[in-house]
């Protein structure tokens, strides 16, 4: 009897602690991070960086209380992180991150987040896609508390919805301010049909100079803000940005003309 109990005790210790060590060796022991288990298991977790993950996590803050106690706060994500680092710490597949931000890379684990700036600079987006966007995406993906809202791509919003991470209403809201990487424009009214949009007859982020004129905005009103309105296809939103003018104030003023028309 004495021997039997000793065997049970020894077996429990060996199986539990040995099993944990074995799972660490196999790379499946994650005590923080996301929840995409089956995909996480099938993906190599190499970060592509020479740094140990411990060096990165040392600088990350953990949630001190609440539903996410003990989890790393994505606010600590830095531009120097690779998608592989984010995958390792937050358990979101690097290929998902790459898809969310329109990165076509044979090895997305090696993609460094700060490279967004160089990549998207040429598009001159009104909403910045950068480190903040990755933080925002990670928080939404893992259902963490949301800090500041940041720019997302339409791909990212679609992925969040497809993976069941956001509700339908949040999807609609996020889509309203998401950037369509193919066109380079913000997808305003992504959930609104073209007819409904036109019926609203308002200046939005998609409205061009010629559309505004056809809605009833006088040329003089536009010239108050822009010196050159000869390019009818130019987006008012982009022009406002190039002139460092507040687009929100401009739309309010222009829409007043339409309403009074």
């Amino acid at each position, binding site marked *: 009897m004495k021997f039997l109990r000793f065997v049970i005790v020894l077996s429990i210790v060996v199986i539990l602690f040995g099993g944990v060590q074995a799972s660490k060796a196999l790379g499946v022991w994650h*005590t923080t991070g996301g*929840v995409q288990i089956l995909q996480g298991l099938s993906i190599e977790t190499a970060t592509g960086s020479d740094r140990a993950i411990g060096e990165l996590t040392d600088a990350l803050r953990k949630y001190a209380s609440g539903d996410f*106690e003990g*989890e790393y706060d994505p606010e600590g994500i830095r531009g120097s992180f690779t998608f592989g680092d984010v995958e390792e710490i937050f358990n979101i597949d690097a290929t998902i991150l790459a898809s969310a931000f329109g990165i076509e890379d044979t090895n997305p684990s090696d993609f460094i987040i700060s490279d967004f700036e160089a990549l998207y600079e040429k598009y001159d987006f009104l909403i910045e896609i950068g480190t903040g966007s990755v933080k925002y995406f990670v928080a939404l993906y893992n259902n963490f508390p949301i800090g500041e809202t940041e720019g997302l791509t339409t791909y990212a919003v679609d992925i969040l919805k497809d993976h069941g991470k956001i509700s339908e209403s949040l999807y609609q809201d996020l889509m309203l301010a998401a950037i369509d990487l193919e066109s380079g424009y913000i997808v305003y009214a992504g959930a609104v049909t073209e007819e409904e949009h036109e019926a609203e007859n308002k200046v939005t982020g998609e409205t061009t100079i010629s559309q505004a004129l056809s809605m009833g905005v006088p040329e003089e009103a536009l010239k108050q803000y822009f010196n050159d309105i000869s390019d009818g296809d130019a987006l008012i939103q982009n022009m406002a940005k190039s002139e460092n003018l507040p687009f929100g104030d401009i739309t309010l003023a222009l829409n007043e003309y339409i309403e009074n028309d």
Partner: protein
Amino acid sequence: MQNKNKWYRYGLQIFFFVFIGMIAVNLVVSETGTVLFPFLPDVSLHAICPFGGIESIISLVTAGTLVPKLHLSTLVISVLVLFITLIFGAVFCSYVCPLGTIQEWFGKIGKKIFKRRYNTFIPRKLHNVLKYFRYISLILTVIITYNAAKLIFVEVDPYYAMYHFFTDEATIGGLIVLGVTLIGSLFVERPWCKYACPYGAVLGIVGKLSIFKVKRKTESCNNCTLCDQRCPMNIELSKKTVISDTLCNRCLDCVADCNVCPMDSLVFTAKKIKAVKNSDCDESPSVVEPPVEGENK
């Protein structure tokens, strides 16, 4: 001698009770920037809770995801405990679970107070009904967790409350259930385990398939019913040959106490039991009074 060999179990219970407590304290203290036990992992209890993998089983199967706060480590621990259970039965409950341990400690106080009346307050008929409540608890927990997509069980979880009572992480519901459980343990052995624990329900079912089981040699047993009286889970061992009751947590107190019989009629084995001719034992049934804890030292 009986108490001596029980110390293997008691020792492991104390080890895990303290080990998990240190992990919980470590995490709370680390928020202040101090690491109290640098040799311990800096993880939340959810990350090493074996019930997590069970709680989110529906979302795991249907979507390949665990609910927030749970991680791959949760799943690893769940699998390891199920593996142990397939070998020995629900020894996790009797050798590892800190909530089971603290109930036993309170139970020792109850034994001192009530002596032989301890663990006899709930009539057998009522016990036989109440013991199914833990399956309801399991089903509700799994379904509600899936629907809420969060660890809803933590709201009433006495285990989590026990290790977080000094923080604002402890829920009112959890603390109330813990209090009721500990007070109940003064009257009934392991009340949470017997009547409410959803994880115990899972391990009990898996334990039915275990390789090792407690078995009774009917040829040598003189039906003294000492094992029935000793069993903390109120199982009537004297009426069975193979003890595959889902409540059995393999504490092996019955086997230890049965050693008073020279024929060792109760055994914990993987083998099929053989008929044993017992010329030394009295063939006629005789009722033996169980030793009260502390009296047989």
